[in-house]
C-alpha cells in the first residue's frame, strides 16, 4: 500500500520535473537575441526536412481521407436524398477536425519521431557536448531551428491537407458519384464561415504544431544516451504527442464552441 503511494508520488515528482526541464529547454532555446542572418539558413534546412519531406505522406493521406469521407457521406446522405449537401459535410469535417488532427498525428509520426531520433543520436554520440566545447550553443544551433521549423510547418501542412482532402471529396462525390458540382461548392461556401471554421482550424493546427515539436525536441534532448534510450525516446515522442493532440483537440473544440 505504502509502495503504491510512494510510486504515485515518484511519478508526480518525475512528471513535474520533466515539465520543468522541457519549459526551461524551450525558454533557453527561444529567448535570445535574434541573429537572423546566421539562423535563417539553419531554419531553411529544417523546414526542408520537416515540411517539404512530409508533403508526400500528407498529400497521399489527405486524398484518401477526403475520398473516404466523400464516399461514406454520400452513402449516408443518399438515404435522406440530401446528397447535394455532400460538399458541406466534407468541407466541415475536414476543415474543422480531420485537417488539423490527422495532419498532427501524421506529423508526430513522420517529423516528430525523426526530430527526436536525430537529436537523441546527436546527444548519444556526444555531438551536443562537443559543440558546447567549441563554444557553439547547441540550443541555438540544434534545438531552436528544429523547433521553429516544426512550429511553422505544421499549420502549413494542415492547410494543404484540408485543400487536398476537399479535392478528394470532390473527386468521389462529383466526378465519380455524380453530385452536382454547383450544389457541392455552393452549399460548402454557404455553410463554411472563414472565421469560425477555417481560422479556428488553423489556430488548432498552430497549437498542435507547438506541442508536437516541443515534445519531440525535448524528448530528443532528454534522451538517455544509449541505443535503447533513443528508441524509448522516439516511442515516447509519438505516444505523448498523439495523446496530447487528441486531448487538446477536445479541449480546443469545446473552447471554440463556447466562444463562438
Amino acid at each position, binding site marked *: 500500500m505504502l509502495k503504491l503511494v510512494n510510486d504515485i508520488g515518484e511519478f508526480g515528482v518525475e512528471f513535474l520535473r520533466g515539465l520543468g526541464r522541457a519549459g526551461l529547454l524551450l525558454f533557453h532555446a527561444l529567448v535570445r537575441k535574434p541573429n537572423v542572418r546566421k539562423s535563417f539558413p539553419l531554419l*531553411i*534546412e529544417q523546414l526542408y526536412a520537416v515540411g517539404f519531406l512530409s508533403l508526400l505522406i500528407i498529400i497521399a493521406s489527405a486524398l484518401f481521407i477526403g475520398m473516404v469521407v466523400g464516399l461514406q457521406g454520400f452513402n449516408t446522405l443518399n438515404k435522406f436524398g440530401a446528397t447535394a449537401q455532400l460538399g458541406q459535410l466534407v468541407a466541415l469535417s475536414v476543415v474543422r477536425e480531420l485537417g488539423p488532427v490527422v495532419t498532427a498525428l501524421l506529423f508526430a509520426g513522420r517529423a516528430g519521431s525523426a526530430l527526436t531520433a536525430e537529436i537523441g543520436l546527436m546527444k548519444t554520440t556526444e555531438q551536443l557536448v562537443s559543440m558546447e566545447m567549441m563554444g557553439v550553443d547547441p540550443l541555438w544551433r540544434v534545438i531552436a531551428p528544429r523547433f521553429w521549423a516544426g512550429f511553422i510547418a505544421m499549420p502549413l501542412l494542415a*492547410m494543404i491537407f*484540408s*485543400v487536398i482532402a476537399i479535392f478528394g471529396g470532390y473527386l468521389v462525390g462529383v466526378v465519380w458519384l455524380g453530385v452536382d458540382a454547383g450544389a457541392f461548392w455552393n452549399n460548402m461556401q*454557404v455553410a*463554411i464561415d472563414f472565421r469560425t471554421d*477555417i481560422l479556428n482550424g488553423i489556430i488548432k493546427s498552430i497549437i498542435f504544431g507547438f506541442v508536437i515539436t516541443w515534445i519531440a525536441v525535448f524528448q530528443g534532448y532528454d534522451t538517455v544516451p544509449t541505443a535503447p534510450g533513443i528508441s524509448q525516446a522516439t516511442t515516447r515522442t509519438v505516444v505523448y504527442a498523439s495523446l496530447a493532440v487528441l486531448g487538446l483537440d477536445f479541449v480546443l473544440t469545446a473552447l471554440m464552441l463556447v466562444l463562438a
Partner: protein
Amino acid sequence: MLQTKRLETAVGFFLLFSIGALIILALKVGGLSVYSGTKGYWITAVFNNVGDLKVRAPVTIAGVRVGEVSGVHMDPKTFKAIVALHIEKAQTQLPADSSAHIYTQGLLGSNYISLTPGFDDQHFLQNGSRITNTHSALILEDLIGQLLFSLKSSDKNKSG
C-alpha cells in the same frame, strides 16, 4: 552551394503551395469574396419574425442570387427584427416599393430572402433604405398549431 540552392527551392515550393492552399480555403471553400464589403449597397428590411434566417444567407431576385444577409438584429423599441441586406452590384436598382419575403430552400433547407421588385419607376432603394413591406418566415410549428386549432373548432361546430 548547389545543395543549398536546391533546398531553398524546395522550401520555397512548400511555402508557395501552402499559401495557395490558404487562398483556396478562403475563396473556394469559405466563399470569402474579394469584393464583399466594398462594392454594392446596403439596405435594411423589417420583419415580424425571421425564423431561422442566418447571416450570409442568400438574397435573391426571381431566384437569382444578388446579395447576402449581412446582419440580423432586434429593434429594442418595436421588438421587430431588422435584417441588413447587402446587394452586391450597384447596378441592381430596386424600386422603392419592393417587398421582401423569407422563404425556405426546399422542405428542410435553410432560409433565404427573396426580393420582389415593385412598380415605382421614379424612386429607387439606396444605401440605407428600409423595406417595410415584408412577409415573415413561415414557422412550421405555428402552421401546425393553426391547423390543429381549426380542426378542433370545426369538430366543435359539428357536434354543437
